[in-house]
């Protein structure tokens, strides 16, 4: 518990650090939302000055930061110039959609990676080994963007799945069960892109970890006691291989999140990705900070979950942290 | 001889591992007041079970661990005051060999490179000269110089341990601390290394400090034994005396653990 609390505190410090640093970086970038208007002969210098003072852009940097922190506390997270409303309410539905995508992809990727990697670990020679090695190497070599575009092309050509967005036209009129099915159908493409992107990495790690565990003396001892193979795998090898995999779980969440931002843009999934891109292009200052902060929060929570799992899985770590 | 100060003199040495170093665990008193002298050219063995503090004491003598209190004098100099070049010189003169020294050899280096590496670090001789010395050292521990290009995995466990000893000898130390350096080796290889160490002692006037849980093995190697128990030296004496008149109950327990064996008949005279 002490250990978890300490990790949570680290996470909090990280959040504060990221917020301050990204605030500073975005602030240092040249221009702002109103810079483009300067080129417009219909907007006068005076109007611009009024606008900027209304949004507080003429205040010194520390003051603007403190005001933003205060609005964070109110859940507003600053003000979007483009949308003309606080960032918070814009952000939450996007966070929900991104979470839906990444959590589904993470769960699916791990549910496939563990049995596949464990199976591979028991086949060190022969066609299974060669086949899996080839397929994972090919997938690893394929950039995420190419993968996503390829899937999009496939969907457009075949029409098997909706090729973009999160809901069909007329979604609002559907019955509850139809709506779920509709979202699920829209999920197929982006989730496939994400899973195919991370699966080869995960499978290779699982294979290496389980193969090491299978070579461990206690696994040989278990076999020597006549323990059946499925118990050797599920009670001995997998639990012993779990530690690095759980740590990898936290990392995989980070990887999926960043890939997800890209895939969302390509497949027009209404998550944090398109919002972030739009905000950067428009130099919509606080709207850039929102997704950055939300992503950091998701990452920190993912790693906390991994830490909690690690504590649950390994008695030696529990003993060291007591 | 009487006028010469002992190599090591230790007074009231204690070492506590506090809760901070071993997180959450209660404070552990590894050494509870050690007084010890090590004279030049002697063979002393520290014998005790795991947790008796023998390895901690060895580490304090090699200045790899800071004592909590007490003093360690090396030739009259306080170990804590050694700095800079004098500390380097101390590190050359006192070498520590551990049970896993043999497994800690760099697998990518050849045997000759492993042995000459300390010379290179100290900037002794040129490349040719170091190579020559390395081959000489290998020969002196019974590894053919022709094997100079072999790597650790091509050697047996006993050969690797001898290579670790050759490496320690490269800097011409005066004291070797051998902490369970024989554990896990076969009896015939233990005997080979024991013989080697005695030859080296006769040639270079080395001092040995052995650390082990195995009293019967130490009887083979050392002249004098110090029995350690719960962070203290409970008994010290000549090997023969320890076996014939053990005074401390723990010494008697250690002796009882040595399985008795019928003595083999003498080999036929050739």
């Amino acid at each position: 518990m002490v250990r978890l609390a300490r990790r949570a505190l680290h996470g909090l410090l990280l959040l504060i650090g990221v917020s301050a640093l990204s605030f500073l970086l975005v602030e240092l970038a040249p221009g702002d939302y109103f810079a483009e208007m300067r080129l417009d002969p219909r907007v006068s210098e005076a109007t611009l000055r009024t606008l900027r003072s209304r949004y507080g852009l003429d205040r010194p940097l520390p003051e603007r930061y403190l005001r933003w922190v205060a609005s964070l506390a109110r859940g507003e997270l600053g003000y979007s110039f483009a949308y003309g409303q606080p960032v918070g309410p814009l952000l939450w539905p996007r966070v929900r959609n991104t979470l839906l995508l990444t959590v589904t992809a993470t769960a699916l990727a791990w549910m496939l990676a563990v049995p596949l990697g464990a199976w591979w670990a028991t086949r060190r020679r022969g066609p299974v080994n060669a086949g899996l090695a080839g397929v994972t190497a090919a997938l690893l070599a394929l950039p995420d963007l190419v993968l996503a575009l390829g899937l999009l092309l496939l969907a457009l050509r075949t029409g098997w799945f909706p090729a973009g967005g999160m809901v069909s036209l007329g979604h609002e009129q559907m019955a509850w069960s139809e709506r779920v099915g509709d979202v699920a159908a829209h999920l197929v493409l982006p989730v496939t892109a994400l899973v195919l992107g991370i699966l080869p990495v995960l499978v290779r790690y699982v294979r290496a970890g389980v193969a090491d565990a299978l070579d461990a003396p206690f696994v040989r001892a278990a076999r020597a006691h006549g323990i059946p193979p499925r118990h050797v795998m599920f009670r001995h090898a997998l639990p012993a291989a779990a530690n690095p995999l759980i740590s990898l779980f936290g990392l995989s969440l980070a990887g999926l999140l960043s890939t997800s931002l890209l895939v969302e843009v390509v497949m027009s999934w209404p998550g944090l990705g398109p919002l972030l891109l739009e905000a950067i292009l428009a130099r919509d200052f606080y709207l850039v900070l929102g997704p950055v902060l939300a992503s950091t929060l998701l990452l920190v929570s993912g790693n906390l979950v991994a830490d909690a799992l690690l504590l649950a899985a390994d008695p030696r770590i529990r003993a060291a942290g007591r | 001889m009487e006028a010469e100060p002992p190599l090591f003199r230790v007074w009231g040495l204690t070492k506590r591992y506090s809760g901070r170093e071993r997180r959450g665990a209660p404070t552990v008193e590894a050494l509870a007041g050690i007084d010890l002298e090590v004279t030049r050219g002697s063979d002393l063995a520290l014998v005790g079970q795991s947790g008796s503090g023998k390895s901690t004491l060895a580490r304090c003598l090699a200045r790899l661990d800071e004592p909590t209190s007490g003093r360690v004098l090396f030739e009259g100099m306080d170990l804590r005051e050694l700095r800079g070049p004098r500390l380097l010189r101390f590190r050359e003169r006192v070498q520590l060999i551990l049970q896993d020294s043999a497994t800690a050899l760099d697998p990518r280096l050849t045997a000759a490179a492993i042995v000459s590496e300390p010379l290179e670090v100290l900037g002794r001789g040129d490349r040719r000269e170091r190579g020559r010395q390395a081959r000489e050292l290998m020969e002196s521990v019974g590894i053919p110089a022709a094997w100079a290009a072999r790597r650790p995995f091509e050697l047996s466990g006993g050969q690797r341990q001898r290579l670790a000893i050759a490496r320690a000898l490269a800097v011409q130390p005066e004291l070797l601390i051998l902490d369970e350096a024989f554990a896990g080796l076969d009896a015939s290889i233990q005997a080979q290394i024991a013989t080697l160490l005695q030859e080296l002692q006769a040639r270079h006037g080395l001092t040995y400090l052995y650390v082990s849980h195995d009293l019967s093995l130490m009887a083979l190697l050392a002249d004098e034994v110090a029995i350690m128990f719960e962070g203290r030296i409970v008994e010290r004496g000549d090997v023969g005396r320890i076996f014939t008149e053990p005074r401390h109950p723990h010494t008697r327990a250690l002796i009882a653990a040595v399985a008795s064996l019928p003595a083999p008949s003498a080999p036929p005279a050739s």
Partner: protein
Amino acid sequence: MPALLEVRDLAVHYADGHGGPVVAVDELSLDVPPGEVVGLLGESGCGKSTLLLAILGLLPRSARVVNGSIRFRGRELLGLGEPELRGVRGAEVSIIFQDPALALNPVRRIGSQVAEVVQAHRRWSGRRCRDEALSMLAEVGFPDPVRIHDSYPHELSGGQRQRVVIAQALACRPALVLADEPTASLDSTTQAEVRGLLGALQRRLGLAMLVVSHDLGALATLARRVLVMYAGRLVEAGDSARVFGDPLHPYSRGLLQALPRAPEPGSSRERRVPSPIPGSSPDLARLPAGCAFEPRCADRLPACVDRPPRETRPADGRQVRCFKYGG
């Protein structure tokens, strides 16, 4: 009485990358009668661990049994399928490995690791397997089996862990226990305890044991018959008191002299230090045409380099493989 375990002319080779095979075990025959302890003495790399793994059918992929037979209760074990072998392992023939810190799964409780062995061989309820595990823990001398049952391996000492490993090995009352250096990784006083425990359990349960060790002390106290192994072959066999008291083979003699022992009072150190066997164990991939010990042997004869010596029986109940005895 027919032997419980009969090994005949066993030869095991390992494939290695450089040309010829590594001959780990060759021409090896041995018997373990019911209820009797046989000691196998040999140094690292002599093939003793390969022999034990071959008996249980657990040889690594790179190893191949090229000749011989291994019979347990008259039934050939070589060539049995995995499911049949699984029924033998742990239930009829079990093994105690050298290092208990490595033989137990670090992330699982002790009790479940003992109960699991029972569960693998008996159609009992989980409850009953747990009770059996507890009584087994009591049997190997734990005064508080419940506490040990709920512990993790890292919470126990080396000696306690080895007791747990013994409990696992005996949980299904096997007829034969193989022990691979059961005391080598322990402190000397703990070694004595574990030796005593193994001896007591062996007598109480009437176990047959094949104990591999280079701890001559352990063999002298446990085993009635001792076999000496060098470079994959048995070089000497006989009653343990006689082999230790009067070794015939030059290798056995060298090994016994290399053994540390308590000094006699007043002896100087020079007399205590044994004369080690010169040289080192042969490369099993390039064994000489003659006797494998010949390059290190002080008693070599001209015949030694031509072919390996045959086994002879120079005295009642003794076997030796050396030209000095007509091999």
